[in-house]
């Protein structure tokens, strides 16, 4: 039996996603491995970064054609699994944290009910035990006074707290792979750092893999060991440090960001024509 710690958590080769027949591919020939590490996927809106995340979770609609030469989660192919098997994996082994807690939490159930439901479902514990687990997990994500928060509804808590609740819910089952799709875009800068640190701490503790999907290349660079830069559905570059960026798109993205330490009168804008030439020679 292969050593589970050595092999990659997720291994993707030539992932292609198309919507409808003969249409433009949303994701084309994307390949990467995720070990027990943190990798980032960066790109503009429409670059296919979220679609990649959803394709791994098999959450894309029926009409999306997903093909891949290989898409293995812990050695078993994800694309061959039945919907029922996927249901067992989602949330338990692969968790997805989405952008806005206001839309991903159920507005008519209390926080306690929702977090306890995750415990019931994935840990197989019942009633009181599940609530106790939920309470512990809320305390772990540094929510002060978890007993009070358990009885609150999603609209009664702030965005930062909502995202902590989401993280608590998702990491309760100690998933092997966490996909965080813009987890901090809806949050204030001051809360952003705390949420990222927390996510990082829990992922390390569980020894899981993390895919952080974001448009903010600086944040991803500060946080991840490896960065995939996506443009028009393709991975144009894989980086470990921002300084090594060689592709004109990546360099353009970095130059387009205002940097207070190096003020410029005009920001550089992307020259999309030359990028097209570079990506489709």
């Amino acid at each position, binding site marked *: 039996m292969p050593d589970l710690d050595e092999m990659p958590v997720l291994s993707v080769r030539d992932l292609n996603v198309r919507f409808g027949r003969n249409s433009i591919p949303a994701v084309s020939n994307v390949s990467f491995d995720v070990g027990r590490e943190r990798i980032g996927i960066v790109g*503009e*809106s429409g670059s296919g970064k979220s679609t990649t995340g959803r394709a791994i979770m098999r959450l894309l609609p029926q009409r999306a054609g997903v093909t891949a030469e290989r898409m293995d989660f812990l050695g078993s192919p994800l694309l061959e699994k039945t919907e029922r098997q996927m249901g067992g994996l989602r949330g338990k082994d692969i968790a997805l944290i989405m952008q806005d807690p206001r839309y991903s939490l159920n507005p008519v159930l209390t926080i306690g009910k929702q977090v306890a439901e995750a415990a019931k479902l994935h840990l197989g514990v019942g009633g009181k035990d599940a609530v106790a687990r939920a309470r512990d997990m809320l305390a772990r994500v540094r929510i002060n006074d978890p007993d009070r928060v358990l009885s609150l509804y999603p609209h009664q808590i702030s*965005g930062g707290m909502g995202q902590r609740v989401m993280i608590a819910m998702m990491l309760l089952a100690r998933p092997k792979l966490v996909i965080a799709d813009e987890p901090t875009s809806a949050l*204030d*800068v*001051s809360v*952003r*750092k705390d949420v*990222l640190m927390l996510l990082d701490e829990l992922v390390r503790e569980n020894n899981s893999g993390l895919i952080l999907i974001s*448009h*903010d*290349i*600086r*944040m991803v660079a*500060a*946080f991840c060991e490896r960065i995939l830069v996506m443009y028009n559905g393709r991975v144009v570059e894989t980086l470990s440090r921002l300084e090594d960026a060689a592709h004109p798109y990546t360099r*353009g*993205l970095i130059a*387009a*960001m*205002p*940097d*207070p*330490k190096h*003020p*410029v*009168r*005009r*920001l*550089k*804008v*992307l020259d999309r024509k030359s990028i097209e030439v570079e990506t489709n020679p």
Partner: protein
Amino acid sequence: MIKVENLDVVYGSKDKSNHVVRGVSFAVSRGETLGIVGESGCGKSTVLRSLAGLEGAWTGSISFDGKPVGKVRTRDELKLAQMVFQDPYGSLHPRHRIGTALAEPIRSMGAGDGWTRVAEALQQVGLPAHFASRFPHELSGGQRQRVAIARALILSPPILLLDEPTSALDVSIQAEVLNLLADQREERNLTFILVSHDLSVISHMCDRVLVMQNGVFVDELSRQDLQTGVTHASYSRELFEASFL
């Protein structure tokens, strides 16, 4: 150009009242760009909305160009300051063509039907003139924000109030919009007030930055402070560190 003294905004009454802006005062000279930075709920957008005349519950005094303005604005006062909002999806009428949206300010000011100025206004913000016959959903986010800027500029106001103008946009599009704003500022000698939670955008655009927390200004930073990372209050230090991981 802009002078604000003891601006107070309170919502609700008695025990349910919420004191959003607590007696802030500031002045902006002609051609200057002032940035206001802070977390959500600190009152920065409310200050801007009071300046634009969208808020009815303020007390204190606001004056543009030396002349005090009241809660109910005359047409001439409205022409002095125009606003660009955060969300280009929400700020354009979905069933009005771009041309109608751009001509609207001129029509409502009683200065003709405005159609003759639409093509020019579009070209000024770098969009082709035939976009006038399109609907907002046929434009990308960046193009929509350009239209919102064109609409604000069509009355040639000396003051532009910008409420998070680029936070709904990608960095590459953000750069284009910020460049457009900087060009227009230079061309027309505009006075800007820019509200944002993004310190790097603020420090790129602004000559002076006010840091806001719980309805009051806790710190004032010059352009040089921003470059060297000097802060004078613990809260702005925190914000600074959180913005640049």
